[in-house]
């Protein structure tokens, strides 16, 4: 087991190294002079030269990549071209809203989607099942920003139950913080809920056909206990997997949701950076998000042995 954990952690290193290489070389894939592209149309030759030097574009690719990786390993993601602040500082200032939004969405999505999937599999083929699966298909197809504006229009503008946009830090109290996050989390969670509910249902259907489920029924066990203790526990490996993979959806969605609801998080930071072509920020945010994704999936992989004692490494 310990050996497996070490090997599994070691396996993420080449993946992250490739991600880093890819993110770094994006700058060189661009046609033409990247320094000129970043500087924009109104830049003077001096500006272009300054950007070229600050990004190290005047030096050889491999040397520059080595330096850049060395800095990253030491927690330095570079300096923003426009604000001259370290990228790590800028991300740290914006991380709270993003983490709050992702955490709330994750918790609520799992709390809604897993029971919905269990219910659908239990009543497979019934009206409830079809309604839940129908919602799942629609949830897959609704773009995050369309759901976002729809919710904002109904619940904030028309009914005035919740704030239209913005973010209140957690330090200002849990209730205002939470109120501001309900609509964004719902919009962001739709796709995620659909994905988890579908997978839960599929995994449960397979487990519910097993002999031990019939045995549990035969000995007179209650349906709730059968479903949630015997069946769900054995169906939870694919569910955990999809929760981990789905974090990619959350990360992509956070960028959009923060734009719709004007939340000053990391997503806004990167969208603003696109229009200014502030490349170190774009690189830094992509690296951080990719690392989050890789780490979460590492944890999911390692959790298999806890969920299912039959899995041994």
């Amino acid at each position, binding site marked *: 087991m310990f050996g497996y954990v070490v090997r599994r952690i070691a396996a993420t290193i*080449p*993946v*992250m190294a*490739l*991600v880093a290489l*890819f*993110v770094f070389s*994006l*700058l060189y*894939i*661009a*046609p033409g002079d*990247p320094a000129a*592209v*970043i500087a924009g149309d109104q830049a003077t030759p001096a500006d272009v030269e300054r950007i070229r030097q600050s990004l190290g574009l005047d030096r050889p690719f491999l040397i520059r990549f080595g330096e850049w990786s060395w800095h990253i390993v030491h927690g330095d993601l570079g300096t923003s071209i426009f604000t001259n602040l370290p990228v790590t500082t800028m991300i740290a200032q914006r991380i709270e809203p993003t983490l709050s939004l992702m955490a709330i969405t994750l918790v609520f999505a799992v709390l809604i989607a897993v029971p919905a999937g269990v219910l659908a599999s239990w009543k497979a083929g019934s009206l409830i099942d079809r309604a839940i699966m129908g919602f799942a*298909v*629609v949830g*897959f*197809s*609704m*773009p*995050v*920003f*369309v759901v976002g*504006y*729809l919710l*904002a*229009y109904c619940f904030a*503008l028309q009914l005035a139950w919740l704030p239209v946009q913005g973010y209140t830090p957690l330090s200002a109290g849990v209730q205002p913080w939470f109120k501001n996050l309900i609509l964004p989390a719902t919009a962001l969670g739709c796709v995620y809920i659909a994905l988890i509910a*579908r997978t839960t*249902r*599929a995994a449960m*259907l*397979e487990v519910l056909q097993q002999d031990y489920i019939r045995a549990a029924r035969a000995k007179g066990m209650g349906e709730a206990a059968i479903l949630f203790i015997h069946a769900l526990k054995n169906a939870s490996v694919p569910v955990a997997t999809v929760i981990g993979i789905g974090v*990619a959806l959350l*990360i*992509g969605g956070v*960028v*959009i949701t923060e*734009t*719709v609801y004007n939340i000053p998080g990391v997503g806004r930071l*990167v*969208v603003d950076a*696109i*229009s200014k*072509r502030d*490349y170190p920020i*774009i*690189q830094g*945010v*992509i690296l951080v*998000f*990719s690392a989050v*994704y*890789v780490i979460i999936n590492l944890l999911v992989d390692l959790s298999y042995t806890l969920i299912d004692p039959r899995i041994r490494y």
Partner: protein
Amino acid sequence: MTEASAFVEREIAPPPARARLGSWRYVKRHPSLVAGAVILGCFATLALIAPWLPGDPLTMTPSNRLLAPGRDFPFGTDALGRDVLARTIHGARVSLAVGFIVAGASVLIGLAIGLLAGAIRRADAPLMRLMDALMAIPAILLAIALISLTRASVTTVIIAITVPEIPRVVRLVRSVVLTVREQPYVEAAIAGGARLPKIILRHILPSTIPPLIVQATYICASAILTEATLSFLGAGSPPEIPSWGNMIAASRLYLARAPWTIFYPGIALALVVLAVNLLGDGLRDRLDPRLARRM
């Protein structure tokens, strides 16, 4: 068919009568396939004939700013006095073109890489690690990064959306190849002295096609969503081309005053993606019974 095989077929239980395409029974048996195909067909037709329809998506009439839906403008007008109905119809062109091209391109590229990874053992590990790395980068951020360094054009958008979709196809193809490779008929072909390219193309490739068709529809749906998202974030189709994403982005500030400027393109977008997803579910049920039971 020879007489002997015809005889055997009659002896075994008669095969279930196949519902004829277009018959009512076909609709009842494959509701999502038919619903998806019909909705998608309507949008595709509108997109094709858009230039000949009345209504101009580009003319700005300042005196007609933010008109509510009415007789002259069934979907109202936007902040620049442009016809929302005409823009919504024209928006289907970019969306569907991007969806189809991305689906085709990512399936072809992913198929080639997946066959290589599955058939040549030495290429497997490095190719799959590369795909893992590509998959670790969130698709939208990867696309944003690719676009942010080039001039905004539909071609860049297509490339930027295709790249993150490739690893998923590669994984699917590779998993099929790994299963098929162990089948007796492939062993027989190897024993018969067939060369590697022939084995791949004649004996392995055909098994990958049904799941790939299903995967292609899902990629199409996700590409349409990603294009709209990128345009919404200002990193997609250039503003002079009407696209559902940039229509919604341009109307962001008018949610309270003119919700129709956001909701009509939003509904169109959701409907098209829903249609493609339904089509995918229907195709999956028809082509891949193993998956159909599981989902």
